[in-house]
């Protein structure tokens, strides 16, 4: 029975199919809201589904010079790792499916595999736009990754500093967070860094230099079509959900208890999505060198500042 339950939760709900569907719905919400903010009509609700289904049914063209196995494997690795990352976060406000001490670190690394796969996918074709795009993907990754990871680790670190209930396990962090003030009130700086880091990770505007269509067409994924592109699209959609869930769970007061907890949690996640969409609407794309200097000059300093503040408060108390 336990086996069947596990299988169900892995394949159908909350991970698996439900996760894929919610990823596409989030993507639709993102596109639709962006369109409405920009005074456009935007896509209908099934557009992302239709896109993926259509892409999956299309012929996949492998360009000359791309390694056969790597070319086919990279999209699968990308999607698999984002789906795996989803197992450790409280999807839809439910308890994580699997949990072990240190899964926070593992999740963060699994979330990075997407960017890594996209970068490699671009680098191993011979297309010039792909190579330029993958160069940017990697450059951007080295820019946002450190501040983003540090920002996600900050809640755990703060608990360790305060000496109580510190843990590197997402499930226990979420439980602790539900009993305290929202961490966003105590650590607003790292919350902002984490949210904007997620935008960088997902290559959303203003950090969409790696796929700036007016410069390098579709960036690293220029040569991808059919199934590969569909899998990358799905991976991105899932990563949006997982990333938002993780940030909401860590910073916006965990999941809580009671029958309404999942609903409240989803409201928080969607609230975060709205903030992300607003930032996308407001900001113009910044150049890759500006991205790097933004993250290293401001992003990392802000995280360190937050840590200094946390330690200072602890010392004073």
């Amino acid at each position, binding site marked *: 029975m336990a086996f069947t339950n596990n299988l169900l939760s892995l394949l159908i709900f909350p991970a698996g199919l439900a996760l894929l569907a919610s990823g596409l719905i989030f993507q639709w919400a993102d596109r639709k809201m962006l369109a409405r*903010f*920009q*005074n*456009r009509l935007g896509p209908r609700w099934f557009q992302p589904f239709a896109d993926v289904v259509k892409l999956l049914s299309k012929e996949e063209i492998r360009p000359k010079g791309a390694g056969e196995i790597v070319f086919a494997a990279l999209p699968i690795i990308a999607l698999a790792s984002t789906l795996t990352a989803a197992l450790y976060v409280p999807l839809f406000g439910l308890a994580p499916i699997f949990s072990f001490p240190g899964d926070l670190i593992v999740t963060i690394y699994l979330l990075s595999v997407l960017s890594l796969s996209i970068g490699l996918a671009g680098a191993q074709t011979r297309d*010039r*736009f792909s*190579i*330029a795009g993958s*160069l*940017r993907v990697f450059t951007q990754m080295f820019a946002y990754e450190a501040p983003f990871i540090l920002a996600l680790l900050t809640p755990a670190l703060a608990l360790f500093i305060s000496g109580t209930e510190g843990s590197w396990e997402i499930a226990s962090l979420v439980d602790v967070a539900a009993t305290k003030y929202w961490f966003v009130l105590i650590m607003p700086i790292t919350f902002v860094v984490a949210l904007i880091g997620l935008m960088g990770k997902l290559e959303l*505007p*203003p950090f*969409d*230099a790696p796929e*700036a*269509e*007016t*410069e*390098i*067409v579709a960036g690293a994924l220029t040569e991808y079509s059919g199934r590969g592109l569909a899998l990358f699209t799905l991976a991105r959609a899932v990563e949006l959900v997982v990333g938002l869930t993780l940030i909401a769970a860590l910073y916006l007061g965990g999941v809580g208890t009671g029958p309404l907890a999942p609903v409240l949690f989803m409201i928080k996640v969607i609230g975060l999505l709205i903030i992300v969409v607003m930032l996308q*609407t*407001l*900001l*113009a*794309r*910044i*150049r*890759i*060198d*500006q991205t790097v200097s933004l993250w290293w000059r401001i992003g990392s300093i802000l995280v360190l500042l937050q840590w200094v503040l946390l330690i200072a408060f602890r010392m004073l108390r």
Partner: protein
Amino acid sequence: MTTTQATERFIIPIGPQHPALKEPGHFEFSVEGEIVTNATVRLGYAHRGIEKGTESRNWTQNMYLLERICGICSHIHSTAYAIGVEQLAEVEVPPRAQAIREIVAELERIHSHMLWLGVAAHDAGFDTLFMYTWRDRETVMDILEALSGNRVHYSANVLGGVKFNLTEETAETILKGLEFLEERTHHYRRVVENDAFFLKRTRGVGMMTREDALRLGVVGPTARASGVDRDLRNDAPYIAYNEFPVQLITLTTGDLEARFLVRIDELLDCYRVIKEIIAKLPDGPLTVARMPRKLKAGEVISRVEAPRGELFYYIRSTGGESPDRIKVRTPTLCNMGSVVTQAVGHNLADVPMILVGIDPCFSCNDRAIRIEGSINRRHDHLWSWSDLRQYGIDFYRRQLDYSGEINT
């Protein structure tokens, strides 16, 4: 090691098909990392043989052909042509017609600059501004439709006058639309001037000094943003610009931000001058009493200020019903050199912005081209004008033979 560098250049090709370009042109940017080290341009993909086409049409038909050189600045092409032909025919166009021509020309400038603002914002990755400006551009398109019945090719000119009158009713529509546009334009000016993320992409990017601008022969708003005080509407007033002058707008910074601000300020001045014309519209007929069908032999140069800069027409008549030669030079050609020069040393990400900064219009620009020292050396023989002409005549004669016509 210079030789290895030269052979191992990493070239990013842009065009003829590329999302940054809505029209065909080919650019090759050699990059080192993200920095552009060399740039070349190849034009001529949209050569349509319009100049040759004019020679087999009569003076009136050519008006419609030439209006179709450009979809955005159609009126200014037909105006340049009409001014030239009217000069050859020695007719005096009535003042009311001239004033209506100026109204349409300035409305077209609004339409063109609005469109440019959106395209430039899109190339900077600022799609919100793009969508908003294009939404507001619909207002000026509606105005033009109310005035002429068409959104794009207004077909306002006829030789010796204009086709339609400006009624009280349309004047009201125009004023109402302009009020809305003026408010929006002030808003866009604030955005362009103050948006921190957008300024990162425009301020100090694509610098061109006044000396460079003069050396490269840059025209239009691109030149005016570099402090070159050149605007044909002031320097050599045509149609009604003597009675209703426009303000010369220049900035001295010469970067992309200046190019944005010059165009936006020109928009604001367009609104002012159109309102002024509507308030003081002279009375009188719309066309001359008689426009001759055949023109005297002679040649004329007519220059007008298109939204993108100086537009040049050379018209020669040998006394027949159709022109002997019409030469068109559009402003994009003058400005293209500045793109290749400015791009070197910039980030690849800035290149689309620099390119769009001159407001390129490739299809207008593509006349006959001659490539010297290019890769393609199949035709090392240079054709003289009479060779080309003879070739053209023979070519069409062969075509007629094929269709069964009898030639001698």
